[in-house]
């Protein structure tokens, strides 16, 4: 996976530019609100999936509580505007920084004590629960009632009349996430991170500091998740403890990344699109049935883990390896 030559790296970079340029033109090609909404939500799903992918896919640290960073970004974005009088554009870096800080805090605690695998997953979930209960209990989050960001529609306030504005904003974040992921695949830091994921002791033996590498990964991952939270608040102008720190955002992030293919550049994009097409399809089939989306997500997750542990992106990548894995499963 590290064997990407520089020419293939350049090809990937060109592909990213092409993808971003194409998506950026969507608002010029259609005025359909439904289409724009679909693209915007798919991009948003891509963003949270890429965030999870940085830590889970490249770092091998599976978080079950990514909502922790999402919710922190969302609350900081809302509170900075409502109680601090900060402009929404200026609140954005605050939200991102706060989420990254929470990531560094949880990472410092977890990785300092060598948490791995299932334990790390459960601890992130427990942290998200703690934050949810605190958000329910303290006054400045509005408790269970939540926070309603006042409507002040203008680009200067990061509130747009049409979906196009939001689409471009989230596209900018997705572009940044794709570039960071590209860097992880081609740069030195990414090589360290994947080395730590594949064999921590071996990585340490060649001079990599696993603690620092994992810490940087969770900070980066948290920053993108915080951006997604802030974006959510700007679009829906509402946040409450359940939305912010509840399980569904954590699940959406990890399912999209795993379905698409962990540790790959395009996997999370693919996963986010596939899941959104699936949800649209089921909505047409069953109507607005609360929960049906999550049933699909859960079922897809189980099926992918059983039949395609490397995700959709893994199909073309290694049909042969897959067969070999199947043959060797009954050890």
């Amino acid at each position: 996976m590290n064997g990407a030559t520089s020419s293939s790296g350049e090809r990937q970079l060109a592909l990213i530019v092409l993808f971003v340029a194409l998506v950026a033109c969507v608002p010029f090609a259609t005025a359909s609100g439904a289409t724009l909404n679909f693209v915007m939500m798919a991009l948003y799903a891509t963003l949270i999936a890429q965030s999870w992918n940085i830590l889970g896919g490249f770092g091998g640290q599976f978080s079950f509580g990514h909502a922790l960073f999402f919710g922190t970004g969302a609350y900081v974005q809302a509170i900075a505007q409502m109680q601090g009088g900060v402009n929404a554009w200026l609140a954005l870096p605050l939200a991102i920084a706060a989420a990254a800080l929470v990531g560094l805090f949880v990472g410092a605690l977890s990785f300092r004590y060598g948490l791995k695998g299932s334990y790390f997953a459960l601890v992130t979930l427990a942290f998200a629960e703690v934050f949810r209960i605190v958000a329910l209990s303290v006054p400045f989050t509005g408790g269970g009632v939540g926070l309603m960001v006042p409507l002040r529609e203008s680009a200067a306030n990061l509130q747009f009349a049409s979906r196009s504005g939001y689409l471009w904003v989230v596209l900018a974040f997705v572009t940044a996430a794709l570039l960071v992921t590209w860097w992880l695949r081609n740069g030195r830091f990414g090589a360290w991170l994947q080395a730590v994921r594949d064999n921590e002791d071996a990585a340490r033996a060649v001079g990599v500091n696993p603690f620092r590498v994992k810490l940087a990964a969770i900070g980066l991952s948290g920053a993108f998740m915080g951006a997604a939270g802030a974006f959510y608040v700007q679009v829906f102008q509402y946040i409450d403890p359940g939305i912010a720190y509840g399980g569904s955002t954590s699940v959406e992030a990890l399912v999209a990344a795993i379905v698409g293919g962990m540790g790959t550049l395009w996997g999370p994009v693919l996963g986010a699109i596939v899941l959104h097409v699936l949800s649209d399809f089921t909505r047409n089939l069953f109507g607005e049935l609360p929960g049906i989306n999550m049933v699909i997500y859960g079922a897809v997750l189980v099926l992918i883990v059983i039949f395609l542990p490397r995700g959709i992106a893994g199909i073309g990548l290694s049909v042969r390896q897959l067969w070999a894995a199947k043959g060797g499963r009954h050890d």
Partner: protein
Amino acid sequence: MFDFGILFPSVLNGLTTGAVYALIALGLTLIYGVLHIINFAHGASLMLALYGVYFLKERLGIDPYLALPIAMAGMFALGYGLQRIVINRAGHGKDENILLATLGISIVMENLALIFFKSDTRNIDTAYSLSTVAIGPAMIAVPKLVSFAGALVVSALLFWIMSRTDLGRAIRAVAKEKEGAKLMGIDVEHVYAMSFGIGLACLGAAACFLLPAYYVNPQVGGGFVLVAFTIVVLGGMGSFVGALVGGFLVGVVESLGGLYLGESLGQIGIFVIFIGVVLFRPEGMFGARA
């Protein structure tokens, strides 16, 4: 603040809740001890069991305590099937894959419940739901006392199965030395599925004891998942005694936390314990460091 008349009922209440927690945690720790996997769907499975007991009462008029064998058998079958059909195919040699598969199963269970049973919180009415008895200065609800005794009896039954029966011996053999057990002619896949089945059967029993004094809705399992993990980690993964002691401890902590910090903030105590134990003493109280 530390008035005995307030403290004592709260501790007693915590102990009765803790007994049911212990039963739930025993199921989780059995599955972990034998299969070395974390069943994230444990809470969602408990939710299904609660609905099962609820409908047995509402549709067929079967009292929850009489429904015990039905609930346990039903949950055993669910566990046996899940392990045989889904979970044993998901591992590919990595623990995380099992965790993801059981996460997927729990999401499916919870949201199917949401679709079919709606998000309403339901509870049942029995003749004894509201009756209480006095123990010293404390008034304890009869269903809580029954659940306390019942959970202990079922736990004792589990201990007996594990220590005295051929099945228990096979389970312990597989847990200790899988390859060796296989060479001795033990059907490992069958033992795995039996262990998973017994683990979920504990939930069937817990559901029967819980429901008369509790409620059910599609999200009810979520709260129990982390509580059960906390107990299991606290007691040492795979340790039966640890699960029992941990169950009582967490029940009391939750009760006292609720008393002094209020209902919602009181829950934090459990998560803080969980994070603290995982970080600083992952081998738990009774486990040996791996």
